[in-house]
């Protein structure tokens, strides 16, 4: 008799446990509709993808802007770096729209690929930026932490963009176009002035390109999701 009662108790307890865990799992699943990578018929909505992408791009630009301002204030005062940082970004070879009208005239698929091109062009420079900032004497923690964060978020944004492209233009074989960055030797120069200018230039270009990506994405989001009626 005792055995039966205890087994019944155990069974009911197990059932209760299963129920609770199911509830918890269901709840957690519902809040994060992430498609596992490789899933074919993923049902994450385009709206969510764009929302997430815009959040990421906005965040990346904020970080870049802060990082540039910090560097400018700390290392570049009175050196006249801005006069030399003209037409020095490696992504200028990618022809991207230069104002709103041009951006609105570009088809969203083209615009998406442009965004991807810019994002891919920054993979390598960001990686080296982190390494070189770490190696700087008195590496400022604020700059280093932001560089690390930007590198991380850039990867995530790239993944998100690829998902969006997969949904907006499924099956399109895209040729990966991006600019090659060749500024590493300048970052490693022994001459302090040259090296500092190389950092300044890199951060300046990063700030600009992150703003560009953010603007394009917000245009695309309003255009695709809200039908130009944000």
């Amino acid at each position: 008799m005792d055995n039966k009662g205890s087994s019944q108790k155990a069974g009911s307890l197990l059932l209760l446990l299963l129920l609770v865990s199911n509830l918890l799992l269901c709840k957690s699943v519902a809040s994060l509709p992430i498609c596992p990578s490789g899933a074919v018929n993923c049902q994450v909505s385009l709206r969510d993808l764009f929302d997430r992408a815009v959040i990421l791009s906005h965040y990346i630009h904020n970080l870049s802007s802060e990082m540039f301002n910090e560097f400018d204030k700390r290392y570049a005062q009175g050196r006249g770096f801005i006069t030399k940082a003209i037409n020095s970004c490696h992504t200028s070879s990618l022809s991207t729209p230069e104002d709103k009208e041009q951006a609105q005239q570009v088809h969203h698929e083209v615009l998406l690929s442009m965004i991807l091109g810019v994002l891919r062009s920054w993979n390598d420079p960001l990686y080296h930026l982190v390494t070189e900032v770490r190696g700087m004497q008195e590496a400022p923690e604020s700059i280093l932490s932001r560089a690390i964060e930007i590198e991380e978020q850039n990867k995530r944004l790239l993944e998100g963009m690829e998902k969006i492209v997969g949904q907006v233009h499924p099956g399109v074989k895209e040729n990966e176009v991006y600019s090659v960055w060749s500024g590493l030797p300048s970052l490693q120069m022994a001459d302090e002035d040259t090296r500092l200018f190389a950092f300044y230039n890199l951060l300046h270009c990063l700030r600009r390109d992150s703003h560009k990506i953010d603007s394009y994405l917000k245009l695309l989001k309003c255009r695709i999701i809200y039908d130009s009626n944000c």
Partner: protein
Amino acid sequence: MKENVASTVVFILLLFLNTNLLNGQSPPGKPEIFKCRSPEKETFTCWWKPGADGGLPTNYTLTYHKEGETFTHECPDYKTGGPNSCYFNKKHTSIWTIYIITVNATNQMGSSSSDPRYVDVTYIVEPDPPVNLTLELKQPEDRKPYLWIKWFPPTLVDVRSGWLTLQYEIRLKPEKAAEWETHFAGQQTQFKILSLYPGQKYLVQVHCKPDHGFWSEWSPESSIPIPNDFSMTDATVWIFVAVLSAVICLIMVWVVALKGYSMVTCILPPVPGPKIKGFDTHLLEVSPEKGKSEELLSALGCQDFPPTSDCEDLLVEFLEVDDSGDQQLLAAHSKEHPGQGVKPMHSDPDSDSGRGSCDSPSLLSEKCDEPRANPSKFHTPEGLEKAEKPETNVTQPQGPQSTSVEGKIPSLHASGSQSSTWPLLQPPGLHYSRSSYHSVADVCKLGLGTAGAASTLLDKTDTCALKPSQTIETGGEGKAAERGESESFRFKTDQDAARLLPQDKTPLTSAKPLEYVEIHKVSKDGALALLPKQNEHSGRAEKTSTPETSKEYSKVSRVMESNILVLVQNRRAQNLAPFEEPAKEAPPSLPQNPAAVDLASFPAAPSSCRLQLGGLDYLHPTGFMHPFQ
């Protein structure tokens, strides 16, 4: 000639210069571009500040060139932005491009250029304030009234296409107030205010900020009067209720904190700890063979000599008084808790302390067998008596004596409730009621007990060594003394065995047999040989026969605190039983009886057995040294 011409030319030039200087004309000062701004990230305007104009009309031109281009342009529009400005329309504006702009000031005398300004439209966005700020008071029936604020984004900003994303902030205040109340509204173009003071006029403003730009200016103020009947929420009632409950909670917490301990003890009374000090039996097994007194003593639970108060419980010997009519003072049966017909003398109501090892031989009782028909007198040979205590009448009839003793005992105990433990090492006022006892051991015990003597033969196996057999009131009180209960024990010195006999003739024949150590003899070196009493009824007359097999205590091992003898148990017969006594207690209270062996000298003469009886009585060594030596 030539010199004249040269000097003339120089003179004229100087004159010309001077003339110009006197006129105050000079080339223009250097202008400065102080602000460039884009209201919607599609156009931008730059303003400059002219320098000194040099007194002549100065012409300003703005030139620029863009990043990635080589040729220089001039400002397309000097008018739209006002004086000293240049407006770049959409056609001339490129985002994500650096403009290098310079302003030139020219006048008759010369020209000057400003420093080039590097402008990127991306980072100079500052929109216009929002427009059409409307205020509306809404008072729905089933809900709280509120102020509904609405506005529109600035006209130039293109929010629909997502080119710019604006965030808004409103602020309001009553007209007379000094501080603004600011609220962040996010990207929505309306806001509801719930907390308003009735009867006042409110002013409201709003401004906006693009996603990566600067805050705009505040919009013009809009005002709205709040009518007097604008009913506030019934929050006051809820506030009152909340405050009241908070106060009540605080009071309760305070009461609990104050009384918490008593409540807790009421609910969960503390568990009483054990009172009996136990024996470490395995030590007992070991010690006899090795004859180590320390182990013995520790086995008996007393950790140190003289026994501290911890040991007192163990060592308490209770005077047991049989008030059932039996005139005899009964000693506890050996190894039994004195119980039958005996008043437990322990003051400690919840303990049976002190009985453990030995059946509590009471000083007043005697084990059985020795019917002392003649109440031998205990007398200190040299009159070691408590001087301050009146000499008891030894000739009292037994009955009354016993009763008196009995009576005294209770009173003794009663008064000495706190002194139930025998090793109360207090001096004066130690006394114990007369009791008849048969052996020195008794006396010793008695004395020890009375004096709080630390004589601790705590050997459990030893049938009652010198254990205080009564609860002796410690010296401090001396109440019994005051009651005249001080007894003096007189030793019968003429016996072979020094027996401490009570003065009175209390027949103790019927007393329960006590076990105690009796002084067997005094050896040459002055050691007392004490024998444990083997059996209850053993005739004590012949002590010599007993000792062989009994446990004996050898000589005094040491003296502690100059008044305590530490006795060492000795397997060999004819050894003096060691015992301790708190010698020190007695001396202060004792008169310096020349005949008495003062305790101070005791350490010097350890051979003398000093028993403090009643704190003032001594077993004078000479008393029994004589017969043995």
